[in-house]
C-alpha cells in the first residue's frame, strides 16, 4: 500500500495531448520538435526536417521537463478528420496547428475548430487549447494576430487559449507554446484524484 503510494507520487504527471490541424499545417513537425532531440537524432539522423503525410494517427510518448506527454498526432487530411472526435474525451490539452501561409484555407480551419469546440466532449471540459501559427518563415505568412482574427478566437470564452507564432522546422516558438500549455494543463492523475474527491463529497 505504502509502496504503491510512493510510486504514484514519484511518477511524473501524465498529460494526454491531442494534436490537430489541417493537412500540411505541420503537426508532425511540431511534435518532432517537442520530442527530446537525442531520440530524434538517434533514430533518424541529425536533421529530421522531412515529414511524410500522417495516415490515420500516430501516438508519441515522451518526457518533457517534468511532464510525461502522450501526443495523439492526428492526420489532417480531410478523409481522416472524422477520426479526431474519437479522441476528444480522454485528453487534457489540445494543440491546434495552423498553416499561417495558407490564407485561403483559414475558413476550413475555422470550420474544423468550430466543429471541435462544439463537440460535447470538448464543450463540457474546459481543457486548454493552444494554437501554433506555424510556418512563420514563409514570406507571405500571416501574423499570429491575423490568424486569431480570422479564426475569431476571441469567441472562445470558456477555456484558456493562446496563440503563439512558431516555425516547426527550426523549433522557434514551440517551447514558449508548450510552456504555456504546461502552466494551464491539469494533469490526468490530479484530475482523477479531484474527481474521486468530488464523488466522495456527493
Amino acid at each position, binding site marked *: 500500500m505504502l509502496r504503491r503510494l510512493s510510486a504514484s507520487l514519484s511518477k511524473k504527471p501524465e498529460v494526454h495531448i491531442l494534436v490537430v490541424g489541417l493537412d500540411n499545417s505541420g503537426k508532425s513537425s511540431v511534435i518532432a520538435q517537442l520530442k527530446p532531440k537525442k531520440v530524434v537524432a538517434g533514430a533518424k539522423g541529425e536533421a529530421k526536417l522531412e515529414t511524410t503525410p500522417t495516415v490515420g494517427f500516430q501516438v508519441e510518448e515522451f518526457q518533457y521537463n517534468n511532464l510525461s506527454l502522450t501526443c495523439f498526432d492526428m492526420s489532417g487530411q480531410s478523409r481522416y478528420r472524422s477520426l479526431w472526435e474519437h479522441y476528444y474525451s480522454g485528453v487534457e490539452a489540445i494543440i491546434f496547428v495552423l498553416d499561417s501561409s495558407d*490564407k*485561403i*484555407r*483559414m475558413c*476550413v480551419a*475555422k470550420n474544423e475548430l468550430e466543429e471541435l469546440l462544439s463537440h460535447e466532449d470538448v464543450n463540457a471540459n474546459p481543457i486548454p487549447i493552444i494554437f501554433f501559427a506555424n510556418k512563420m518563415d514563409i514570406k507571405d505568412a500571416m501574423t499570429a494576430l491575423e490568424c486569431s482574427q480570422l479564426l475569431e478566437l476571441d469567441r472562445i470564452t470558456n477555456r484558456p487559449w493562446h496563440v503563439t507564432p512558431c516555425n516547426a522546422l527550426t523549433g522557434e516558438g514551440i517551447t514558449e507554446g508548450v510552456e504555456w500549455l504546461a502552466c494551464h494543463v491539469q494533469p490526468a492523475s490530479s484530475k482523477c484524484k479531484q474527481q474521486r474527491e468530488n464523488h466522495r463529497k456527493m
Partner: protein
Amino acid sequence: MAPWLHAHYDKLAGIRAHAGGIALAEVEGGEGALVVADYARKLRVFKGTRQTAEIPLPPSSEIPSGVCGFYMDDKKIPAIGVASGPHLYVFRCLRPYHKYTAPPVEADALEAKVWRSEEMSPADIRTALAAAHAEGAKLGPRSLAMLPLTSESKQRAHVERVSKIPTTVETTITCTTTLPKASEEPHAMSCVVLGTESRKVIVLEPSAKAALCEVEVPAPPAILRAAGCFDVDWRVYVACRDARVYTITIGDHRGTAVIRKPHLELEAQPAGLVVKDKHLYVATADSRVACYLLKGRRHKVFSLAMPAPVTNMELLVVRKARQVTVLLVALANGEVRVYRDKDLVDVLRVNEVVAAMTSGTYGREDNTLILVTQNGSLLVKMLPRTATFEVGSTTAKGGPPPEQDVPLDIPKRTRLYLDQIDREKANAPAIFRTFQKDALKLKIATATAYLQLRDDDTANPDDNTANDDDDDNNNNNNTAAAALTLAAKVNGLGPFFHIVLEVRLNAGLTSPLRDLPVVLSYDPDLYRTSRPAATLPLLIPGIAAHAIFEIECIDESKPAHPIAISVLGHEEEEEEEGSDDDDDDDDDGDDDGDKPLVSSTLIMPQSETLD
C-alpha cells in the same frame, strides 16, 4: 443552411472570361491553381488569395475562347493550353512552349478553281462566283466580298489584293476540353479536344503537335465534354449551335472517330452540358435543365424549369465516405443551385451574375467551387467536411411536397348519397331542365332588379323636387336623409375618445356640397372637447369626407351618455344646395334653417379607468 465556406472574395480581380475561359489545373509544384484565359489576351494564374503569374498571349492573337490543363508526357509536368483564334498556345512551366494551329478550311472546289485560273477577267470571276453561289456552293469571305462589287476598277483592285493570299481560310477554335489518353489517373497523359468554327472536332495528340483524329459535325460546336480514355473507349459529347448534341466515339479501329447515332434534339440552344455517370445533363436557353439517358435511345429522364436563364453548369464531386456528385447550375439571377439528381439540395446566392464557374481542387482543398462573375470578381467557396447534400436537408422546395403523401380525408359514401346518385341518373333530363328553368328565372329576376335600380337612380333627383314642392317640413328630413349618409364610430377605451365621422353624398346627388358644419351635442358634465363643431370638407359624389373629434370623459363614475351628431345646412337657407331645389327652399328658409341635414345619436362606451 448554406453549407459553403466563403474562403475568398476578390471584388477587384478584374477577370473577364466566359464559361470555358477558366480552369482548375496544376501549374507547377503540385497544388491546384486557377488558370484564366482573360479577354485581355492574357493567361492569368491564381494561387491562394492572389494572382501569381500573368503571361500575355502573342499580340496578334485573338480573344481566347478556352483554356485547359493537360499532361503532354509521362513526366507529369503540367501544360496549359489556351485557345485563341485558330491557335492553341501551349504553356509549360508558365513559359510559352508550343503552338498548334487548327487546319484551315479549304475553299469550295469550284470557287478555288475560279480563283486559280489566270486568264479570267475580274468580271468573269464575279460571274462565275455568282453562278457557283446560286448553285449553293459555300463561298469564302473573299468571294462573298467580290459579289457585290460592280465597278470594273473595284473588282480589279479586290482581285489584285486577294490573289496573293491563299484561298484557304483560317478557322477559329470555339471550345476545348481534355480527354485522358491511356489512363484516367490524376497525372496521366491527356489529349486536348478542340471544336472549331469549321464544324470540326479535333482530338490532338498529348504533345498537341498533330491531330489523332478529327470528325466533322453538322454545325459548329459550342460545348465539348469528354468521357473515357482515348486508348480504351471514349466519348466526346458535342453540343452544337444547331441545338443538337452529337456523340463522337471510337470508330471501327483505334485512332478513328465517328459520330454515333442517335443525336439529341434540344428544344433551344445549349447553355450548358455535363456528363454524370450514365446521364447527360443539358441546360438550354429556355431556362431548362434536362437529363437524358446515355444508354439506348437517349430518352429524357426529367426536365427541370429554372427561375432564370442558365449561365453555367458544372459538376461537383464531393469525395467523402461516399462519393456524391452534385450538379451546380448558375443562373442569371445570381443564384447557384445545387441539384442532386432532380432534387434541389441547396441554393447559393452570389448576387452577381456568374460568368464562369469551375470546381475541383484549389490549393490543397478538394471540393472547391470557383466563381467568376460578370463584374470580374473572383469568389472561392469551399465545402466543409461535414456538408451533406442530403435530399430534404434544406427547406428549399425540391421534389413533391410531403403533403402529397397524406391521404385526403374523404367521407364514406352514405346510403342517402347513393340514392341521390341513382335518382339523378334516372331523371337526368328532367333535373337538367328544372335547373335550367330556375337558372333562367334567377337571371331574369337579377336583370329586373338591376333595371329597377337604374331607373330609381336616374329618377331620384326629380322625385325629390317633386316631393319638396308638396310638403316641405317632413320632406326636408327625407331629403337630408336622401342627400347624406352619416356613419360615426368611437375609437378608444377612455377617458379620451376619438369620434370618427364618415359623411358621403348619396347616389342621385350630382352637385357637391361645401363647408357643411357638424356639431356634437353632449352632456357638458360628462364630456369635454376643445372643438365641439367642425366644418366638413368639400363633399363630392362618390367620395366620403371624414371628420375626427377628440372628446374626453370628465366624470368616469357616471354612466356613459349618448352624443348627438348633426350635420347642419348652411345658415343662409342653402342646406339643400345639392338637391336641386334652391328656389323652393328660399321660401321655407326660416323654418328649416336650423334643421340638420342628417343627424345621428352615438352611443358612447363606458370609459374604462386605468388604475
